[in-house]
C-alpha cells in the first residue's frame, strides 16, 4: 500500500494551539511521526532576565492560560526560597485551594476536548457546562477566570471571606456529584470506550525512560506525584488520605480515568482545607533585592511536574530563570505512542498527554 505523508498543523481543527506534525501513513496505520515545536516561543526566560522579580512573576504567570496559577505560585516560591522567607499558613492554604480549583478546571477542560476529538460532542458540551461552576468560583475568589494573580512573593494577594468559603464548598460538592456522573460515562459509554481503549499505549518502562510526568505517567502505573513526594504549600496539612492516583491500563482510557479521579480528589482536598483555614495574615513583606543564591522548586501542575530553577545575583533582577513545563516532558512519550497507531487515533493520542504548546515553547 502506498505511503502518504500528511501534515497535522500548524493550523488544524484538532489542535487548539499551533504545532506541526508530519504523519507518514501506510493505509490507516502511522509508520512515522515527527513534530516541530516552537511556534509559540516567546523567549520568556530571556525576558525575565531584564525584568525585576515582580514583573517576572507577572510574565511567567502568562506562560499558560490554563495553568497560570501554578506558574505564578512556583515563581513566588522560588523567590521566597532565595529570600529565606516563611509564608504565613493562611496564605499557603489559599494558594493550595486555588491550585486545586485550577486542577479541576484544567481536567474538566481536557475531558471536554477529549470528547470532541473522538466526535463525542455531547460529552464536550456537558463537561464545559459543568466547568463553568469552577470558573465562577475562581472569578469569585480572584476576579478573573484565568490569570488569577493569587500568589505574590510573600503570600497570597487576596483573602477568602467566609461567604466565598461557603460558596466554594457548595461549588465543590456540586462538582463531586458531576464528577461521579463523568466517571460513569468514561467507563461505561460504549462508543467512547471503543475509541479510547487500547489506544495510545505507553508501557511503564517507556514512561519511566522517556521522562513522562503527570497523569500521562500515572496512567502507566508510575506513582509520581510531587504533591505527595515533595510536599509544598499546604499539602502536608491535608487530613484526608492522599495518595497519587494511578491506573495500570497504560492507554488513553487510563489517562481519562486518572484525570477524572484526580478531579474528584481535588474537590475533596478543597472541601478538606476550606473549613480549616487558619487565622492570620496573608502576606509578609519581601525585599526587592534578592541575595545571591540558586534554588530549584518543583510542583505538580495539572499536566505534571513543573520545575523552576532560579539563580539570583544580589540585584532586583534574576540572573537565570529556567522553566520546564510538564508538556515538554511528555512529548517524547507522545511520539512513542504514535508509533503504529491508526491515523484516526492520532488526534486523541496527542490530546491524551494534554499538550499545552504555550507551556512547551515558552
Amino acid at each position, binding site marked *: 500500500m502506498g505511503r502518504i505523508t500528511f501534515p497535522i498543523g500548524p493550523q488544524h481543527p484538532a489542535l487548539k494551539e499551533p504545532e506541526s506534525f508530519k504523519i507518514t501513513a501506510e493505509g490507516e496505520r502511522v509508520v512515522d511521526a515527527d513534530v516541530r*515545536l*516552537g511556534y509559540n516561543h516567546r523567549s520568556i526566560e530571556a525576558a525575565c532576565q531584564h525584568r525585576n522579580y515582580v514583573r517576572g512573576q507577572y510574565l511567567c504567570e502568562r506562560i499558560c492560560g490554563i495553568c497560570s496559577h501554578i506558574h505564578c505560585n512556583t515563581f513566588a516560591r522560588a523567590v521566597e526560597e532565595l529570600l529565606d522567607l516563611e509564608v504565613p499558613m493562611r496564605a499557603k492554604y489559599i494558594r493550595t485551594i486555588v491550585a486545586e480549583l485550577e486542577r479541576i478546571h484544567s481536567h474538566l477542560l481536557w475531558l471536554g476536548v477529549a470528547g470532541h476529538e473522538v466526535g463525542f460532542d455531547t460529552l464536550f458540551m456537558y463537561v464545559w457546562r459543568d466547568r463553568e461552576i469552577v470558573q465562577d468560583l475562581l472569578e469569585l475568589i480572584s476576579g478573573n477566570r484565568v490569570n488569577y494573580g493569587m500568589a505574590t512573593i510573600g503570600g497570597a494577594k487576596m483573602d477568602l471571606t467566609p461567604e466565598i468559603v461557603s460558596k466554594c464548598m457548595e461549588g465543590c460538592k456540586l462538582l463531586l456529584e458531576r464528577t461521579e456522573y463523568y466517571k460513569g460515562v468514561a467507563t461505561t459509554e460504549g462508543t467512547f470506550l471503543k475509541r479510547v481503549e487500547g489506544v495510545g499505549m505507553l508501557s511503564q518502562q517507556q514512561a519511566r525512560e*522517556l*521522562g513522562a510526568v503527570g497523569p500521562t505517567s500515572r496512567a502507566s502505573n508510575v506513582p509520581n506525584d510531587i504533591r505527595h513526594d515533595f510536599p509544598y504549600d499546604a499539602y502536608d496539612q491535608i487530613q484526608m488520605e492522599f495518595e497519587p492516583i494511578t491506573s495500570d491500563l497504560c492507554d488513553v482510557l487510563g489517562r481519562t480515568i486518572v484525570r477524572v479521579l484526580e478531579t474528584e480528589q481535588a474537590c475533596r482536598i478543597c472541601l478538606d482545607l476550606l473549613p480549616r483555614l487558619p487565622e492570620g495574615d496573608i502576606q509578609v513583606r519581601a525585599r526587592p533585592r534578592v541575595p545571591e543564591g540558586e534554588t530549584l522548586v518543583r510542583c505538580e501542575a495539572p499536566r505534571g511536574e513543573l520545575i523552576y530553577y532560579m539563580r539570583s545575583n544580589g540585584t532586583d533582577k534574576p540572573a537565570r530563570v529556567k522553566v*520546564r513545563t510538564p508538556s515538554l516532558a511528555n512529548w517524547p512519550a507522545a511520539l512513542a505512542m504514535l508509533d503504529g497507531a491508526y491515523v484516526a487515533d492520532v488526534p486523541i493520542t496527542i490530546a491524551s498527554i494534554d499538550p499545552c504548546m504555550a507551556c512547551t*515553547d515558552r
Partner: protein
Amino acid sequence: MSEVAEKIMAQVREDYAGEILDATTMRRHELVFTVAPDQIVEFTEFVVQYGWWHLSTITGVDEGEEIAILYHLCGEEPPAATIRTAVPKAAARLQSITSVIPGATMYEREVHDLFGVQFEGHPRLDRLVLPDDWPEGVYPLRIEEIEKRAAKDKEEKEENG
C-alpha cells in the same frame, strides 16, 4: 541539610569510582554534585541507581567564561540530586546522556538551541524552539545576546520617548 541527605551524600562520594569535584546542597531538597564534563555519562549512570531515575530537566546557565549545565534528577522522595558540570564557552561540547536516560533528548536540544552547546551522541540535534530561519551562531540565552537585547530595548525606549 537533613540527616538523610548528609548520609546519602557521603554514600555517593564513597561509592563513586571517579572524581566528584564538589558536593553541596541547594536549599531544602537538593544535593548538588559537580563533576568534570568527561565524567558526566558515567556519573549519571552511577547516580540513577540511587533512586534518582527521573530526569526533570537540563538547565544551561551562562557564567561568563563557562556555560554550566545542570542535570536535575529526582526520585520518589526527597532529597533530589542535581549534577553540575561546566564547559568553556569557546569550546562548548559535551557527551549526550541519551544513552542512559532516553528522555533527555528534548532538554539537550533546548540547551543546544539556546546556548549553542554541542551534545555528542545525540540522535537528532535539531532546533527545538527557535524558528528555522534564525541565524546560525546566535544563541539567545547567552549573556552577550541578552545584554545586546537589553541595550536595544533601552535605545528604542529613548528614541520613542
